[in-house]
């Protein structure tokens, strides 16, 4: 896909429901250029901020991967931490045992994320709605226990594979074409570039014939089978694609932190991720990325002020009341009708009070 291809609109208005308008794409590119400029500035003021930026980007990618299945295909996955952790551990193991070459490690993380997702998907897609969510949660927790207890080492009869509850640490930096990527700022640019590419790739997928079918599954799963589509197969492939991007997020995050611990796979990560997608505005792709960046930022800034879960909970309640369609939905209605913002907020509060009273 060429850069120009990304801006083409074809006759999208006739078929409608296109992910990202031309205007939205231009704004996104400006945003990415802006982020590229923020890196060096942050580095010169407070180098630690670059760490925060990389973490925000990694979670933005993770939230994007979840939005592809949850917001776009309608599959509520409560187990995305499994693919994230699998990608992260794969990166850690390949870097320490095989090679720090990013061109090998990152594709390996993507591949393992896809395989884990395909397996979980294959075992779960026959269930629907909340049952699907519960199955993905169960399989993700299963993988968490496997990593936490270092089951692979027990089976293979060797001392350690995953490092058990300690995890793996002292993971070296990536290399690309013989150049080390240990420098924070270089790594930030690598991450930004890959996140931007992932977004472009998923936008293209969402607007492809395949993407249209999974959008149809979200809209009416019962009917789409009777117009000739193999629903289970489409779901499993969508889930595997999403898992690949979640694995990439893990593969980007772990070597940067130089630690892989079982916490990566914990269900609280999956839960926080669902909150990120809802807060950002599901089904829009850019919304959940903004939501993820915001939550990671707030967690870092406010984590010391009060218990983080309390802050996150309060924030979530506010979003549910005032912006049920998330940050993205609020921004879109602000653009369409800026003057009605106060009225909408009043209406939302009224509705909420009425709901609670009845």
């Amino acid at each position, binding site marked *: *896909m060429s850069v120009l291809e990304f801006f*083409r609109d*074809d*006759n*999208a*208005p*006739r*078929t*409608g*429901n296109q992910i990202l308008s031309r205007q939205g794409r231009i704004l996104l590119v400006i945003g990415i250029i802006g982020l590229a400029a923020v890196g060096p500035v942050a580095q010169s003021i407070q180098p630690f901020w670059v760490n925060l930026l990389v973490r925000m980007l990694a979670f933005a990618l993770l939230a994007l991967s979840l939005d592809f299945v949850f917001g776009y295909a309608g599959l509520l996955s409560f187990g995305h931490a499994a693919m994230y952790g699998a990608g992260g551990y794969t990166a850690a193991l390949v870097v320490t045992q095989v090679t720090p070459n990013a061109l090998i490690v990152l594709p390996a993380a993507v591949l393992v994320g896809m395989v884990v997702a395909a397996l979980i998907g294959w075992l779960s897609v026959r269930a629907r709605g909340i049952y699907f969510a519960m199955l993905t949660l169960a399989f993700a927790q299963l993988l968490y226990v496997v990593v936490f207890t270092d089951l692979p080492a027990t089976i293979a009869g060797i001392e350690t594979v995953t490092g058990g509850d300690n995890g793996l640490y002292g993971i070296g930096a990536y290399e690309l074409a013989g150049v080390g990527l240990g420098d924070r700022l270089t790594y930030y640019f690598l991450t930004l570039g890959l996140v931007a590419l992932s977004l472009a790739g998923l936008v*293209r*997928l969402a*607007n*492809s*014939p*395949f*993407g*249209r*079918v999974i*959008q*149809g599954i979200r*809209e*009416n799963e*019962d*009917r*789409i*089978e*009777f*117009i*000739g*589509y*193999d*629903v289970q*197969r489409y779901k499993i*492939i969508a889930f595997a694609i999403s898992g690949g991007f979640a694995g990439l997020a893990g593969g980007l995050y772990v070597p940067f932190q130089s630690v892989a611990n079982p916490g990566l796979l914990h269900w609280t990560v999956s839960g926080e991720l669902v909150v990120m997608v809802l807060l950002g505005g599901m089904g829009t792709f850019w919304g959940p990325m903004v939501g993820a960046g915001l939550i990671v930022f707030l967690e870092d800034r406010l984590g010391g002020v009060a218990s983080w879960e309390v802050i996150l909970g309060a924030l979530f309640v506010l979003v549910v009341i005032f912006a049920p369609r998330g940050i993205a939905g609020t921004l879109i209605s602000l653009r369409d009708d800026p003057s009605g913002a106060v009225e909408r907020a009043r209406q939302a509060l009224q509705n909420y009070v009425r709901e609670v009273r009845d």
Partner: protein
Amino acid sequence: MSGNTIEMTEKDTNAPSGAILRTEGLTKNFGPLTALEDVSLEIPTDGITAIIGPNGAGKTTLFNTFTGKHAPTDGEIEFDGERIGGVEPHEIVRRGIVRSFQITNFFSALTALENVRLAAQARYSGFSPSDFLTHHASHKEPIADAEQVLERVGLDDVATETASNLAYGRRRHLEVAIALASEPRLLLMDEPTAGMSPEATTETVELIEDIASDTTVVIIEHDMDIVMDISDRIAVLNEGKLLTSGTPSEVQSDKRVQEAYLRGGGHE
């Protein structure tokens, strides 16, 4: 009173036209409940066949076994000479049996054109790299097919409207358009005129007759005026069994049908 194979051949010709669909001893149980019992029936390739019967007679279950939603408990279904019992619904659609639904059952948030285009797309796309990496709008055939179908059912002026915004009668036409976009050889229509105004009903009847000119049509219909008017053959189901089948006049004069279903003159 059941189990006998009833030959349904074209009434006015000597040359027997073939049957596109044939069931042999078709039985479907849901636990202890028998929804269909030993139904042997042939749907001729030409014309319109109506399936009638009181509520709970097994009409919708019969459609569900034809479309692969339910695998038969016993017996055979043959479509165009091939067994289709137990074949997956999406595969059956690709072979040419398509149904429309009684309740409006489409993709509400998508445009009318996209609803139909999605159905047309199934005939062109699969899992090749271009199905993942190209823009859907760059595939012209499904769009052209969808536009043609919308024109045929008279919805071309609302192609870009969101489906949920359409008026009731037009929604029902969209429902039929989605089914037509799959290019069926056998179209199963579940109460296509249910809840329609008299004018919309007339329009729909004309549409069904137009479709029947090149497609085999089977309808489930409660309005006996419509059934008598448009069908070439009628099959009567009662309590999961095939009571009888034949031309409208044969069925109308059948005593058992009158007892079971057409009590009081046959018209609702």
